[in-house]
């Protein structure tokens, strides 16, 4: 017998601290597999966010620097500019990347910073207990939109891929999802391609992954995937937003 699927080397052998059924875990695995498949684990440095993935340094089996909330792209820039021969990825939630970290992500992209951004869009602030995120859908109830998100009062959701695609420094941006095995496979390819582009020194790369938060959405893990599919996909259209090839 041969093992055809096992824990990738780029993951530490410790359990995640994510809630049961949270797709953060699937995304971790895919990132680790991309790193392994390119054989770059020892040359890869991750930058973890403030958000549920704040402990990512315990999970990835490579060097990891924990950034302040929203600043991962700046931290990654600092590292990349010091070690241009290393591969950098940031792992960021939607609050981290699209709210407090807006300037940092826009400018890292505009600079064409040679980093790979793993952007986990779960339409909520997971870690702090379920407040509205920039990506929270209209009508969605959260801790700080108790009556449902209202465009006038709370603003409209931000689509990050669409926002960044006009920037000349971007080499590759794609939005993928984690709600079923087929989409997970696609997501996996996208992540690998992003790292590949970095290895080839093409420019800034970002993969947005639609993800769940069963705890704060108040659903079971299976219900969460369904909710993602039915509610997030129509607004957050999957696909390649930029690819310089």
């Amino acid at each position: 017998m041969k093992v055809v699927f096992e824990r990738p080397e780029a993951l530490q052998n410790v359990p995640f601290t994510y809630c049961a059924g949270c797709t953060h875990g699937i995304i971790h695995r895919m990132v680790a597999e991309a790193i392994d498949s390119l054989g770059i684990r020892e040359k890869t440095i991750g930058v973890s966010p403030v958000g549920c993935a704040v402990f990512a340094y315990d999970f990835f089996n490579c060097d990891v620097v924990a950034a302040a909330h929203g600043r991962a792209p700046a931290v990654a820039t600092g590292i990349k500019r010091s070690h241009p021969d290393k591969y950098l990825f940031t792992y960021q939630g939607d609050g981290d990347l699209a709210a407090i970290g807006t300037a940092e992500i826009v400018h890292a992209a505009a600079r064409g910073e040679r980093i790979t951004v793993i952007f986990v869009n779960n339409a909520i602030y997971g870690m702090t207990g379920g407040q509205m995120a920039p990506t929270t859908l209209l009508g969605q109830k959260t801790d700080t939109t108790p009556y449902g998100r209202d465009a006038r009062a709370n603003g409209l959701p931000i689509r990050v891929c669409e926002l960044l695609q006009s920037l000349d420094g971007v080499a590759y941006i794609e939005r993928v999802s984690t709600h079923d095995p087929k989409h997970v496979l696609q997501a996996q390819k996208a992540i690998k391609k992003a790292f590949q582009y970095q290895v080839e020194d093409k420019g800034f790369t970002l993969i947005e992954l639609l993800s769940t938060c069963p705890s704060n959405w108040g659903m079971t893990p299976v219900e969460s995937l369904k909710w993602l599919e039915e509610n997030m996909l129509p607004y957050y259209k999957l696909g390649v937003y930029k690819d310089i090839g």
Partner: protein
Amino acid sequence: MTEDLIIAGFGGQGVMSMGQMLAYAGLSEDKNVLWMPAYGPETRGGFANCTVIVSDEEIGSPVVSHPKAVIVLNLPSLDKFEDAVVPGGVLVVNTSLVNREPKRTDIDIVHVPASDIANEIGSSRAANMVALGAFLAHKPIISIEAVKNTLKKVFAAKPQVIPLNEKALDRGAEAARVQAAV
């Protein structure tokens, strides 16, 4: 007279709301009350506990290292708080989820299969109320009546859950009384 109590379990067992209920009830009896939560790290599903203080005097420290009573709803909570109870104090143990005997011999120990009883009467979620009933039967720092009145106010919006909770309190109290009688 100042009574203090720590209630401990894991997130989702209703530890926090149970403590709040007690504080509300204390307030309705015109006592000074204080409720203080302690959460685990920002990540989910960890352990949770809260402190409740009920007193006729001004309440000083909200941080109680040696409470007069502790209610533990699961094993890690027993491990953590057993030693904290003051000598002569009370320890209520949810035996449904705790598979060892407490070691202390200088305190009163109330055993109550709270989760089992709760399941029996219809919802595992009511285990907290069963444990509370058991505690109050043993040590009536607040009357069970006051807690029931509080229940009515708190659940005014969803009255359907009131009977279950009342029943849970009663069954818990009963279990404690039976035990005391033994």
